[in-house]
């Protein structure tokens, strides 16, 4: 138990805002941006805000695995690099998974009380995703 504490996974943090960042592809209001940062970006971007217990193993390992999977599914830092077709799919996925309460994950919300979405926050995000879908569909 003590020994494994020395095996720390690499952190998912990047100071750089990539050219493919979602904020450079579609417009996001400050309020939506703030919700995304608190409730989504720990697992869906290149920037995780790590809690203290992430330094306790094996919690940190589980977390690293979680983040890896989340980023494969959707990465806001690389959103601009997706094809228009995938961008539309991802936005649909965002709206649907919030509507269906699939995201944020239950296990994540237990530890991150602030990540829980209120009804207002949910509709704010869903409307934003919907508007973005409409604006992308026009371009397409």
């Amino acid at each position: 138990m003590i020994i494994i504490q020395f095996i720390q996974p690499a952190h998912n943090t990047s100071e750089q805002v990539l050219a493919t960042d979602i904020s450079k592809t579609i417009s996001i209001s400050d309020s939506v941006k703030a919700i995304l940062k608190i409730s989504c970006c720990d697992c869906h971007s290149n920037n995780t805000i790590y809690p203290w217990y992430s330094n306790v193993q094996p919690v940190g390992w589980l977390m690293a695995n979680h983040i890896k999977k989340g980023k494969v599914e959707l990465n806001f830092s690389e959103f601009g690099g997706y094809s228009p077709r995938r961008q539309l799919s991802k936005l649909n996925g965002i709206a649907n998974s919030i509507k269906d309460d699939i995201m944020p994950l239950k296990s994540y919300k237990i530890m991150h009380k602030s990540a829980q979405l209120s009804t207002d926050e949910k509709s704010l995000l869903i409307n934003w995703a919907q508007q973005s879908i409409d604006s992308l569909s026009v371009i397409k």
Partner: protein
Amino acid sequence: MKNIILGLTIAATTLTASSVTDTNSSGSIKEIVSSYLQMKNAFTEDNSTGAATAGKKLEAAFKSFDKSALTAAQKKTYEDVEADAREHAEHIGANGGNIAHQREHFDLLSKDIYDLVKAFGGGQVLYKDFDSMFNKGKGAFWLSETKEIRNPYMGKAMLTSGSIIEEIK
């Protein structure tokens, strides 16, 4: 006798080999379409597990698709569709038991398969059917092999709601 057996074996092997190549050249889009239709039919029966099985089959069909015969432009179209459609197939495959979520992916998957069929042909006559109620009245379409309407979004609740909006030959 020995020669006859040998001859027959060679003939049989050649026949099998040529039929395999035949299905591969035009058959993989066919395989993709048939897995999609299998999934669609599972949804019309509210069969979530059946849809998941078809999802895994569809994912495998995309994976084994032979791109070598495609032109550069075709390859681009195919890869664009594939990247998206495979993810939907994977999600539908992994979400047996959650039919509402599977159907949301099926909506997006249907768009992908439609574009694929429009670009490469479906290997059979297909109908593009539209249901105006799904997605809170935004509507959604699906592809079908039959003229008869069997709605995969509504399933048994409203099986015959919808209409044909295009015949794809």
